[in-house]
């Protein structure tokens, strides 16, 4: 009997003590060991604020943004790359039969807007966090607003008609999101599409502000004043505001060292003298650009292959040909492939979002459009000479514009330009052989999944 009482008392002691110790936290379990934190505790000091700014750049790195699709699709949709892999989503882009249900079309949209929300949360938090000095505050604000503007511009050029002076105020652009989302109710409100003109105006106003807010302290790994100017030059070019495009490009060219970096060093040396805004990747924070481009024999997946047209676009002695492309090795049956991104073992090739040669080509095009042909050729030839080519000459505006177009194709291959260049100059139908019935395909569809979520969004015609 004594034994039984002892056993029982011991049991009860065990129950009560185990509950006393383990139930103290009761049903409130701490989430932080799971690498998440309650949002009210997330951005409370400068260190956490800086972490949140890094989070915006992380958005740019995503495979649905510069990490893969936004970098390679513009070449795939145009005539620089063709699909040789297994993803039907890529095939649709290659043959330009994109369905509104294409998952990647949705993923790109989603990732860009999530990057915008990350920026908007930071913009709000800057006001809350105590102890930031005025200088830092400007830099933080500038970075968040620059990245937000970049994402808006990248959205409008993919999902809306190119800027057209006469229709831009009525052409549908993409929704401008200036406010961070905090509640379910707020998130559920459907937004509507702003016009193309509104989006361009927003982007330009923001970038003009960023020029003032930003320093060049973290150039070229992060947003800087020069990067804001360089992006402005590009936006003005897309807007066909030739004067301003030329002026901004000139500012950038004057601020930058001369165009003397060897072409391969742009890629082989990280953050070379050429770089204006270079997105950083590391071995433990990788992208898989080389993996998607390289053939299986070199450990890649060869989802994309350079086209005949691109091989033909280069002159034989063009230094860029040998660097950018590897021809087919018929002996060992290895297909041709692109090797601008080549760090297949470490997957840490940087993305060249803004670089100097583009600024020369922007100015060349802007000058040509303003009939300053000699000025245009001067900029064009600066790029050509570096590539080991002869100076080019031409007599008419049209010829110069063709030369610029081709130069952009060769110089900026696989950097996400070709599709936008052909679309904004109205050359896509001719170069890519798009029939009048298929003309609507020059604008990507608004993702069907987003329209289901928000019926206020109007689909682009034809889809």
């Amino acid at each position, binding site marked *: 009997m004594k034994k039984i009482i002892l056993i029982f008392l011991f049991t*009860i002691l065990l129950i009560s003590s185990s509950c006393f110790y383990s139930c103290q936290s*009761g049903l409130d379990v701490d989430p932080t060991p799971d690498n*998440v934190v*309650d949002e009210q505790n997330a951005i409370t000091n400068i260190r956490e604020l800086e972490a*949140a700014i*890094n989070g915006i750049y992380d958005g740019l790195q995503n495979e649905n943004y510069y990490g893969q699709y936004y970098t390679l699709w513009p070449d795939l949709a145009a005539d620089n790359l063709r699909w040789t892999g297994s993803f039907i989503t890529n095939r649709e882009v290659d043959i330009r039969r994109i369905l509104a249900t294409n998952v990647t079309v949705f993923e790109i949209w989603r990732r860009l807007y999530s990057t915008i929300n990350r920026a908007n949360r930071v913009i709000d938090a800057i006001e809350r966090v105590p102890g930031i000095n005025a200088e830092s505050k400007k830099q933080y604000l500038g970075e968040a607003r620059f990245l937000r503007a970049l994402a808006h511009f990248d959205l409008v050029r993919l999902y809306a008609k190119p800027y057209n002076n006469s229709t831009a105020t009525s052409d549908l652009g993409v929704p401008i999101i200036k406010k961070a989302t905090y509640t379910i109710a707020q998130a559920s*409100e459907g937004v509507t599409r702003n016009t193309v003109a509104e989006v361009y105006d927003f982007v330009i106003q923001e970038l003009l502000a960023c020029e003032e807010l930003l320093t060049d302290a973290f150039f070229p790994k992060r947003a800087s004043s020069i990067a804001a100017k360089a992006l402005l030059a590009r936006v003005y070019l897309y807007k066909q505001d030739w004067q301003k495009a030329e002026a901004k490009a000139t500012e950038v060219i004057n601020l930058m060292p001369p165009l003397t970096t060897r072409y391969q060093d742009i890629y082989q040396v990280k953050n070379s003298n050429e770089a204006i805004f270079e997105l950083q990747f590391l071995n433990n924070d990788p992208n898989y650009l080389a993996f998607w481009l390289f053939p299986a024999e070199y450990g890649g*997946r060869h989802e994309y292959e350079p086209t005949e047209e691109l091989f033909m676009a280069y002159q034989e002695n063009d230094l860029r040909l040998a660097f950018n492309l590897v021809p087919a090795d018929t002996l060992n049956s290895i297909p041709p492939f692109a090797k601008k991104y080549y760090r297949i073992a470490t997957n840490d090739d940087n993305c060249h979002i803004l670089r100097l040669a583009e600024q020369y080509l922007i100015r060349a095009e802007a000058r040509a459009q303003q009939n300053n042909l000699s000025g245009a050729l001067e900029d064009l030839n600066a790029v050509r000479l570096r590539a080991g080519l002869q100076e080019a000459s031409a007599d008419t505006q049209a010829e110069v514009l063709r030369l610029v177009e081709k130069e952009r194709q060769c110089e900026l291959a696989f950097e996400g330009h070709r599709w936008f260049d052909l679309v904004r100059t109205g050359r896509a139908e001719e170069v890519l052989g798009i029939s009048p019935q298929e003309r609507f395909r020059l604008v990507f569809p608004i993702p069907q999944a987003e329209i*289901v979520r928000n019926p206020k969004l109007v689909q682009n015609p034809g889809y």
Partner: protein
Amino acid sequence: MGTFAFLRMKKILLFVAWVSIVFMLRLGAQNISLTLEGKVMDVKNEPLVGAAVEILKAGVTITGAYTDEEGAFWIILSDTSNLFLKVSYVGYKSYSARITADMFKAPLSINLPEDVLELEKVVVVGYGTQEKRSVTGSVAGIKAADIANIAAANLDQALQGRAAGVQIFQNSGTPGAGITVRVRGASSINSGNQPLYVIDGVPMNTGDFGVLSENLGGQTINALSDINPNDIASIEILKDAAACAIYGARASNGVVLITTKRGQAGNTIYNLNFYSGIQQPWRKLKLMDAKQYMELMNEAYINDGLEAPYANPNNSVNTDWQNEIFQTAPIGQVELSASGGNVNTRYFISGTYFGQQGIQKGTGFERFNTRMNLDLTPTDKLTIGTSMGLTYSHNRRTPNDNSIYGPVGGALITPALQPIYNPDGSWSRNALGSNPVGVTQTDDNLSKSYRILANAFIRYEIIKGLFFRTSFGLDWLNLNERAYNSPLLVGAGTNGYALMAATQVQKLLNENYFTWKRTLGDIHTLEAIAGFSFERNTTEGNVSQGQNFPSERFRYIGAAAVFPGSSGFRTGWAMNSFFSRVNYNLKDKYFLGVNFRADGSSRFGADNRYGYFPGISAGWRIKGEDFLKDALWVDDLKIRASYGFTGNQEGLANFAARGLFGAGYNYDGNAGIVPTQLPNPSLKWESTSQLDLGIDFVTLKEKISLTFDFYIKQTQDLLFSRPLPTTSGFTFVTENIGKIRNIGFDLSIRSQVLAPLTDKGLRWTIDFNFSHYANTVLSLYNKQPQEFGFVSRVSEGRPIGVFYAFESKGVNPETGDINFVDLNGDGVITADDRNYIGSPHPLFFGGLTNIFTWNNFEFNIFLQFNYGNKIYNSTRQYIESVGALPFNNLASVENRWKKPGDKTDIPRATVLDLNNNSRDSNRWLEDGSFLRVKNVVLSYNFSPALCKRLKLRSMKIFIQSQNLLTFTPYSGLDPEVNFDGTSNTVLGTDFFTYPQARNITLGVNLSF
């Protein structure tokens, strides 16, 4: 929660005081004693060893004994008034009688008849047992004998087709892989749909805790595979709300109660069980040979105005890739157990090894496990017991299911003209750079699981009929995983990629409850339980990755040159619960049961921490009424009704209710954080209400017993990942939105068709179950449909996972392209032209077991059937591409369109496929019905005389086969398929899934 903890402390202190008082009041009284003696035998006068003999007073057992080797028992009684004697033995009808003075005069002789229809079975219900006759809920039981000796790694595999209303689908033939179990249809979209498994009272961790996922698709691992099916004494599946409500917030999907074997008093019984056999794929696909493939590709290029790639379509190489990756593989198990004991100590100890290689090279599963179940009865009021299972299992997989780089996918897509090896001896590579045979050898995906499932309890009878039981349970899973992907497997980078991970999953459970039973005036029986439990769960783990290895021989990350990342985490959840149940039985005719449980979970929003789950049930045993007493055509008749609420919180992230920032979103070596989730403080359980109407009917002189249940099961406040406009920066938020309903019926019939007149005659019994359910999604957020997988959809008014895609009108005889239906008639085929093309849910499913016994032979044939479901065969999308993809094609593509006027269902060969003939459409939809000879066993029992001579208790030899024959119109490798594992929303989709095996084993069961 501080107040709550305090209140609980107070309760516990009160309880301690109370228990102490009860102890002190305990009195002992002794009178004159008499001895009750007897012998228990079957109808053939063979002794029954270990039969339970109980002495009851007012419905409560006051003492008891087990029969010995000779079937004999003796019990000393001090008081003989108003006592009842009850003798029971598993599988036999019990005997009961009022104890009279005559009984003490001479030893009793009691013969128990066999209970073929299990009319008197004792059914395990939550926190206790009940006699089948008085059960008012819907419970399906499975006997140990039904699943013993089935050559299968997993317990749930063995359950397939055995219980009405329980749909079990093996998604992948990969050994040890996860299995989809649905009790009465799917009741959730985003939360879990698998039932709650409770082993010896401890809710188990189930599912896949592994981190290896790269290219493994539906081949999830399965925490259930750590249980040895042969250790199981019985399985009960609680289906309706009344039976489930006692498990409250986790019971929406049904509850599977597993009871492991325990020792019985008597001499030690040793059992040696052994089987061994082989497995083979039951089907292969007919693919093109090298010449056919080259001709097809030439035609495709020429049709598109391009140059033919193969100038000379004759090739000396003609690899049959399926033959190269599939194999005839061994399977086997050996088990030794010992059980026995005396009135004070009883034990069951077992040790088992199970091993299986996969039918695809490079895969396999092994398990070692031991179990010790112990019961101590130091005094007749106190019982102390433990159940302990230790398991080590080892699972080897290769990429497959949702991967075209895996051996199965590779074997189907790689053209026959490719050799296995290059002339230099290296692996050749297909269009994707992979080699199906190579991948089975060069890559490792190993999961090792170390599992402890244990509990210990103390039960004490405080006063007559009132018991208190407290238990501690532990489920501790330690999972070590390692992967190595060679450069051959695309995805590996250049020089190999390796991963190592360790995950610990821990569950601690403390349960305390009182049970009380009392019979008043012989007509009222009241039974009640009440208790509380605390449960704490944590999962923690770490993963490291390495890349760039010096050679193929080095496969552990220590040899890597580059470390792309490592991570670690810990997460957890807690639950506090209170539960009670009262059963009332009037005259054995009228039954009433009331259940209640309150669960508080850390997973839910601060505004909705606690959920309350009541259930009520009633039964009327009409046979007990006077007007049926003499009806010969009714041996027993009972009608039942139940209604109740259960909850569901599985599959919900531990912190789903909170607004969160996540870490790990780094840039340039600097740590980054981003908002990852919007807060939802009102998040709560999914709540399922279920109405069940049932009837139990026994007729034809106890030859047929029939159970029929009709149910309406409706889940509201679905835990739903509601899509948000992504312009908000968020894609989903978890909210309680939407309703889903299952209406259906379960029918099971057990029949003794032929009963032998003599001991040696032919006996034939049939066990049949048949189920139907109709699943409908009743409402969703703003009626928004959601899309999953290839073509699966969740849409209002449709069953969950309905297929939605373009409709093909067949091949246009003029152009050779597919004509697609222009649903909205706008002249172009756009996303709006997609339509509902079929459902993955069967119209009905079930199983049929026939057992024939003749002399010492027994023949058991079990058929499983499934009718009316569709399968989306996305595999064909890849191997019927008619040139659009650089992959091999089915031999049937020879019937393709070749010239205008051809009438065929296969379009023309084209490389560019501008019409997108191979888009997602009902062209890939197939009938998934099947009838499968799931299990056949022929066994021979050696005669008792022979056994005696060999000094054995019994001996049985058997030959067994699983999946011996399958009849199906489905063209793929297997109709039991889902590439997305146990997904709720992607159902019946085939994408290079590992097929099921057909196996044949020989075995022996020895008992001595």
